[in-house]
């Protein structure tokens, strides 16, 4: 079984070129005349969905993408509104990290805000629609209590108390019109279990100044690994802003890839890094010129890793299929028993959030167990 690759025809033309705008060496080509109205709307919507509207504006402004005056005004106005939303989220983030600080909860800001300010030449090129914060596993329950005490609401209950802290990626909390993903690790499932979580906290992280306030993000190497996780496992078809994140970080890492390779090997996640970097090079049309990119393109994952990657390279991945894979990957029998017990006999509030009846839950469970078994 070969690793399933995301095909170029998942992206309307010239979306891939837009996602590469400003990247040196990309071979993606541009149209030589403005798009017709229907094609323009399709590309504009796709750019929004792939969170590359900032790159679309930049491509139009620089003349790389020919556009009519109306198209130019249209995309600028839309991107301005997106940026207002992004800045509003950043102000909310400042409140959240201030709250965690006041309660002595160590944290790192993940993804959107951190990457936009640390890895892009201009943060306006990177948009996002929610917030992501990492806390230590042992502080996870306290962080949830502090945030729910401040008005955040969990989108789903835990199957059993302590489940999120022990087994899940984290939890999603609803704020005032936005979602806050509170993480203890990068991802649900077998790939999440491989992360040596203490490595994420071993250094002081990276500082990023947002609206006059200094906040902490992951350091360069762990931020890159997280970007690879998100690019390779996050969305299907692969989200272009995630690939662009990887491309921006690859430029910064250059030939100093030793620490990243060492960390990925120690965690056992080289297949993720290789998939993310190889897909970034392939879809963004970048020649693999650095040592890291050459290694990634040549990397052949094991059959077991291919199967684990396949849990994510599908448009209809679900919690249950990943839960089964997680069960098989848990190292200790005691953890397997606790995990299985929580999912088979969860608290009523958890079931009520997900399924309308016990029968519906049973049918869903059988279907997903079959899918999870098939992807072993």
């Amino acid at each position, binding site marked *: 079984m070969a690793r399933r690759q995301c095909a170029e025809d998942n992206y309307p033309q010239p979306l891939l070129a837009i996602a590469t705008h400003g990247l040196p060496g990309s071979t993606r080509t541009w149209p030589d005349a403005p798009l017709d109205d229907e094609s323009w709307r399709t590309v504009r919507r796709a750019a929004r969905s792939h969170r590359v509207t900032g790159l679309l504006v930049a491509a139009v*402004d620089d003349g790389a993408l020919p556009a009519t005056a109306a198209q130019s005004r249209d995309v600028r106005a839309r991107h301005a509104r997106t*940026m207002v939303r992004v*800045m509003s989220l950043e*102000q909310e983030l400042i409140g959240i990290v201030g709250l965690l600080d006041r309660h002595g909860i160590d944290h790192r800001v993940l993804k959107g805000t951190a990457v936009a300010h640390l890895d892009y030449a201009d943060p306006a090129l990177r948009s996002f629609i929610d917030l992501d914060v990492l806390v230590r596993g042992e502080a996870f329950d306290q962080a949830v209590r502090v945030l729910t005490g401040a008005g955040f609401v969990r989108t789903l209950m835990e199957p059993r108390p302590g489940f999120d802290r022990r087994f899940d990626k984290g939890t999603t909390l609803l704020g005032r019109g936005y979602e806050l993903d509170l993480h203890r690790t990068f991802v649900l499932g077998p790939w999440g279990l491989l992360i040596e979580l203490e490595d994420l906290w071993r250094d002081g992280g990276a500082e990023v100044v*947002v609206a006059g*306030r200094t906040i902490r993000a992951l350091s360069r190497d762990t931020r890159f690994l997280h970007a690879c996780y998100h690019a390779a496992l996050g969305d299907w078809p692969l989200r272009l802003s995630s690939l662009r994140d990887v491309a921006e970080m690859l430029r910064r890492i250059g030939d100093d890839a030793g620490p990243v390779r060492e960390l990925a090997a120690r965690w056992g996640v080289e297949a993720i890094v290789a998939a993310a970097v190889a897909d970034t090079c392939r879809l963004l049309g970048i020649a693999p010129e650095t040592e890291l990119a050459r290694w990634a393109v040549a990397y052949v994952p094991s059959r077991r890793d291919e199967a684990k990657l396949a849990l994510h390279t599908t448009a209809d991945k679900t919690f249950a299929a990943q839960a089964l894979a997680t069960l098989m990957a848990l190292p200790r029998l005691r953890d397997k028993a606790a995990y299985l017990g929580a999912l088979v006999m969860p608290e009523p509030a958890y079931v009520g959030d997900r399924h309308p009846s016990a029968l519906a839950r049973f049918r869903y469970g059988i279907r997903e167990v079959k899918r999870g078994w098939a992807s072993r």
Partner: protein
Amino acid sequence: MRLRENGMSSRQVGGDVVILDMENSRYLTVGGSGAFLFDLLHVERDRDELVRALCDEFDVDEATAGRDVDAFLTELSSAGLLSA
């Protein structure tokens, strides 16, 4: 003088600057020479520096640049966007 930091964010969108002022729950867009001056005001500047920069960038005489700078600073000040 310089821009206020707390409760305010900005982003470049094309040649404009989009500003979000959370303290007053509003956003505004500044273009042209205003966007240029706004960018300079992320660090402490005096009026003369701004006038000279505007003359150099837009090739205008000092009197015109001075009027533009004064008008822009008055707008920023009345919007509460300058630090105290």
